[in-house]
């Protein structure tokens, strides 16, 4: 076996030439196109990463904005709540005051109505009682309506002060006498006698009929009067009852 040095040299040259050819026309172009594609992919990835970062930043900003908006909303809600509470307290106080005022007014009105009602009821009861009494007195005999009151009239006149009593029939003036019906001559004479006796001088009478007296007699001047009739008694009773009721109420 021997080495063919020419072949060895030629093959070495061939290999170097082939290295140059493949390097220039195969490996470099392919490596370049792979690198370009890789660079494009890296660029796309970088753009995607930048877009992602941008989106994340935008998301972060949006979150911050949302947080700020939430905080502002919470603050506004708290302020509005405080304002509403304050306004509510004010309105409640005003409403309480108004309600108290209305309640007082209602109480007063109710009291007044109740008092009016009570007064009306009392008046009505008094009038009813008086009417009942008047109807009862109407059953008295006609004679009793006059004769039974002559002495009382004279006693009433006698109990008046002297100067007041002197006004009755002074200067020959007739004493104004009210009677529930027209008087008979005997009755008028008895009355005149009793009054003359009480006055200590003769008296003349000017009789007027007032059925409202029911029974009894009344005399009066411009400054004094003697009432001795059922009407007067019933009015006094009614006034007393009303005064008592108001005093108790």
């Amino acid at each position, binding site marked *: 076996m021997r080495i063919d040095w020419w*072949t*060895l040299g*030629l093959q*070495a040259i*061939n290999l170097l030439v082939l*290295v140059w050819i493949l390097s220039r*026309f*195969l490996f470099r172009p392919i490596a370049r196109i*792979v690198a370009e594609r890789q660079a494009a992919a890296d660029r796309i990835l970088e753009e995607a990463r930048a877009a992602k970062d941008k989106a994340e930043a935008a998301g972060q900003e949006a979150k911050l904005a949302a947080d700020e908006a939430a905080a502002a909303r919470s603050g506004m809600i708290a302020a509005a709540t405080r304002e509403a509470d304050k306004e509510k307290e004010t309105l409640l106080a005003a409403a309480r005051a108004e309600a108290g005022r209305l309640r007082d007014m209602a109480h007063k009105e109710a009291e007044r109505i109740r008092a009016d009602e009570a007064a009306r009821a009392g008046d009505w009861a008094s009038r009813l009682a008086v009417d009942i009494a008047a109807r009862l007195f109407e059953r008295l005999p006609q004679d009793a309506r006059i004769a039974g009151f002559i002495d009382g009239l004279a006693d009433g006149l006698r109990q008046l002060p002297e100067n007041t009593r002197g006004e009755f029939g002074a200067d020959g003036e007739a004493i104004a006498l009210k009677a529930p019906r027209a008087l008979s001559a005997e009755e008028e004479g008895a009355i005149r006698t009793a009054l003359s006796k009480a006055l200590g001088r003769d008296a003349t009478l000017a009789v007027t009929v007032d059925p409202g007296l029911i029974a009894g007699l009344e005399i009066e001047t411009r400054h004094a009067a003697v009432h001795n009739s059922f009407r007067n008694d019933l009015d006094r009773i009614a006034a007393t009852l009303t005064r008592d009721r108001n005093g108790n109420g």
Partner: protein
Amino acid sequence: MTGSPLVLEPLFMLGPVPVTRPVVTTWAIMVLLALFAFYLRGRLSREPGKLQSAAELVVEAIDHQVSEVVQRDPAPYRALVGTVFLFILVANWSSLVPGNEPPTAALETDAALALVVLAATVWFGIRAQGLRGYFATFAQPSWAMIPLNLIEQITRAFSMIVRLFGNIMSGVFVIGIVLSLAGLLVPIPLMALDLLTGAVQAYIFAILSCVFIGAAVNGEESTPPKARPEREPT
């Protein structure tokens, strides 16, 4: 066969230079690879077709292997390692052409390959470490190791030659013997095995080239352990 099958007879003469059959076959392979390169180069695009994708796959696989072994940017070493791999692969598989004998079955071709790799190893080592730095690696771990390291450079190149030559030449011989004894179809399984052997040998030669270049570029001590085969394949 009247002479030794290991002796090359010139097919013709180019002046004083005898041109043997491995050289002619190598030229044919060069033309084939060059035409493929020209064809592919004219059709490269950002959106690759099947052929470009396959070529990119091969180139990226070469880059990956170089990066793994050399632990550096594969660009400066891609052309040499890739050319060695492609040439040996195509040369080994050229045995499929009837009547053709692969040029790697000739000792001169394998020796040329190993010598180019050896020269490239020295060149890349000096370029990476400087002249003093590269030759200083021969004195590692001591000056006494200089003869052994020099011998190692020769012996490992010689081992590459013998490995490739032995595997390919033996395959050619076996197929020739079986073909002459058994007939037409019997050698087919052996030829298929020969294809596998050819691919494996191309890969081994390229990887060993990477290992030697990596050792020269990074220094013997800094060569990655996984890139240093504990025992060289046969």
